[in-house]
Structures are given as C-alpha cells and as structure tokens.
C-alpha cells in the first residue's frame, strides 16, 4: 500500500478516535442467545433465535459511571432458509422485539454465501430489514456481515475442539429520512460440544451513530448456544 495512503488512514483513525472519545457514551452488558436450527429437507431449513439484553454498566461523558443492572429487551426470531446454490441460501423471516413497555416487529431478508480460504471458513451475509413499531417511524436497514471461523486445532473444527470466530458488520439505516451507520466487531471463542451443540463466548462491540456525531459504544459479553 502506498505510504501516503497509510499515513492518511492513520491520521483518519487518530482524528476519529479523538472525536469519538470526546463524545462517546459507553454501555456494557450481557447478551445471551439460544439459536435452534432445523433442517426440513435438502433445500429448506428453519432457524429460531431467542436473545435478550441485560445492561450492567453505563458511562456517559457528562455524567458519572454507573454499575446497575437493567433488563433491556428480548428478541424472538423465526427464519426460513432455502438453499440456492452449493454454499448459498436465501433467508426470510421476522423478529419480535419485546421491551418492558413496547413491542416492535421486524421483517428480514438475507442472502448468505460461504467461501473457504485454506483453513478458514468465511460466510458473507447481505441483509435488509424493516422495523415497525407503534411509536416510531419505520426503520429500514441494509447490512453486510462477514464471519470467519478459524480452527484452533487441526485443519477444521471437529467435535470437542475450540475455534475462533470473528464477525464484523456494517449496518446502514434510514429512519425519518435520517441516515445512520453502525459498525460491529465481534470476536468469539467457540467450542463444539457434539454434532448438535456448540457454545460460544464473545465480546459484541457496537459503534452506533457514527454519522450524527453522538457515537455510542456498547459492548456486550455474548454467550451463544447453537443447537
């Protein structure tokens, strides 16, 4: 890479980070999930997911840090996937978000394809979703997620072996004609318990509101159970 471009990138990162630090609101919590996958036949499969958010820490630049437990919400989703190629599928579904005082609904459309680079399995997910709620305008999102799995022993991940998984995602959203960008980076350590069950522990970092200069960083400790 050209040295000038490198310097420019470093400069942008430094400026951005100073900018973010000056404005940032940080929150942290737990994000446990259960993910059930059921193969119907050669072409179709179902996916059900239950996920909930629990905040335990909040730090606003203008206020003091605060450790306090707060249940935030639960998401319940149901998706149906259809294989459209050897390593690709189209997925449709919906999600219900249950908050203490509100319920919202989301329709989801995804295209997922997998590639393999040596020992790495990589999945690409291009998705759109629309969130409907009674007290807010509909939010439209376009998102791209890259997930990479690296076996920690051997050439591929087998039963009773650990793996490292890294997800990174960019989410573009439009609501009330206002555009926003969210970035996510999620490193995970996973373990294959048996042919059916996997468990993952990770850190889901979300950088919200990049565009409107009120960046929030939310870090979740994630515990995912795939069955």
């Amino acid at each position, binding site marked *: 890479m050209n040295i000038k471009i490198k310097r420019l990138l470093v400069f942008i990162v430094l400026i951005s980070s100073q900018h973010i630090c000056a404005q940032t609101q940080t929150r942290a919590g737990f994000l446990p999930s259960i*993910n059930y*996958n059921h193969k119907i036949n*050669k072409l179709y499969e179902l996916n059900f997911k239950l996920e909930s958010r629990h905040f335990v820490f909040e730090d606003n630049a203008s206020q003091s840090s605060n450790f306090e437990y707060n249940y935030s919400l639960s998401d319940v989703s149901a998706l149906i996937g259809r294989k459209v*190629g*050897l390593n690709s599928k189209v997925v449709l579904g919906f999600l219900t978000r249950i908050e203490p005082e509100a319920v919202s609904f989301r329709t989801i459309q995804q295209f997922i394809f997998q590639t393999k680079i040596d020992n790495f399995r990589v*999945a690409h997910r291009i998705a759109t979703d629309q969130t409907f709620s009674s007290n807010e305008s509909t939010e439209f999102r376009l998102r791209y997620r890259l997930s990479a799995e690296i076996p920690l022993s*051997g050439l591929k991940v087998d039963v009773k072996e650990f793996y490292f*998984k890294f997800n990174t995602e960019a989410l573009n959203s439009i609501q009330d004609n206002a555009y926003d960008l969210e970035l996510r980076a999620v490193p995970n350590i996973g373990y294959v318990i048996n042919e059916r069950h996997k468990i*993952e522990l990770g850190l889901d970092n979300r950088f919200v509101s990049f565009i409107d200069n009120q960046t929030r960083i939310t870090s979740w400790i994630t515990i995912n159970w795939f069955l």
Partner: protein
Amino acid sequence: MKTASIIISVGFLLLFPFISKAQHKYEREFRIKSETIPQSAKEFIDSISADSKIKWYKEISLNDITLEAKFKYNKKKFSVEFDTLGKLQDVEFVIKKREISPAIYNKIKSKLDSIYQKWKFQKIQIHYSGKSSHIVDAIRKNEPSDSIKIAYEIVLKGKNLEDTQLYEITFNEQGELKNILLIIQDKADHLEY
C-alpha cells in the same frame, strides 16, 4: 481429500445404483509435534527439501490412524501420508487442470459429463504411491516414472437432477473412474445465523 469430517461413500451409486450401499467414513485430524513422528517418516520428508515449514497432523478415521505431513514444494501444496510406524502410504499434491495430459483429461471430462448436468472443479490432486525413492525422484523431476502408481483425486461441484453437491472423485492413471464420494459439508449455522 481431508475437507469434510464425514464423507458418505456412495461408491458407484451414480453409475450402478443396484450395487451401491452407502458407507459412513469419519475423519478427524489434529496437529502434532514433529518430535512424535517416526524417524523414517521425517527422513522421507527431509529428502524432499520442502520450501515451507512442515506441519504434522494425526488423522483418525473409523478404520485407520495415519500421520500426515503438509508443506509446499516447487510452489505446490503437498500432503504426504504415513502409517503410525512411519511407512509411506502415498503422496498427493495439488495440480492445475492443464497439468493432466489432454488424452486423460478428455476421458475424465466425458465421464463427468455423463454423470452430471453441470460440474466445476474445486481442486485437483495427483496421488503418487510406490517405492519411496521413486516417488522422491518423481517429485524432484516433476514427472512421474513408470514405476510409480498414479491416481487423480478431484473435488468438484456437481449438479444433477436433485441438487448441487460437492463430490470427491478418483480416477486412475488411465482416466478411468474408480470411486465417487459425496462430501457432507460441516454445519455452518454459527456462521450464518
């Protein structure tokens, strides 16, 4: 060859449905230290003078335990398999389509055309088996002699009436079909959802 943990052997299912009976073949491999490798296996690998670091693996299947060395030589990816006592079993390395002689390639192609509506190579490996010294000579000269046995192992994406699947297909030196395996890909729900 070692891309899937479970391979269901369908033998000649696609050619002779009446004789086929699916068999399950489990493979699991993990990295091992070179200190645990028998001297004879290490000496064989040393005689090739690999261009890269040598990575050793132990591979466990239902019937067998083997040791495998993986490395690069002459810009090719090699995999050398030994039994647990260090006796050479075979050598395989990745080749390009154009490295198969046109006559053999045409035979392979017409056989694949007769099996699949559409197909595409994912990986081609050539296998050498025979006397160790002859195999080393063949690797160094980049040309097999008549004294070693050759086979082509092809991983391909094949489309038939039902759907598209990944297959591992073996052809002998003459381009005759020897075996077809259906590769069952590992679950990827944790990457997709």
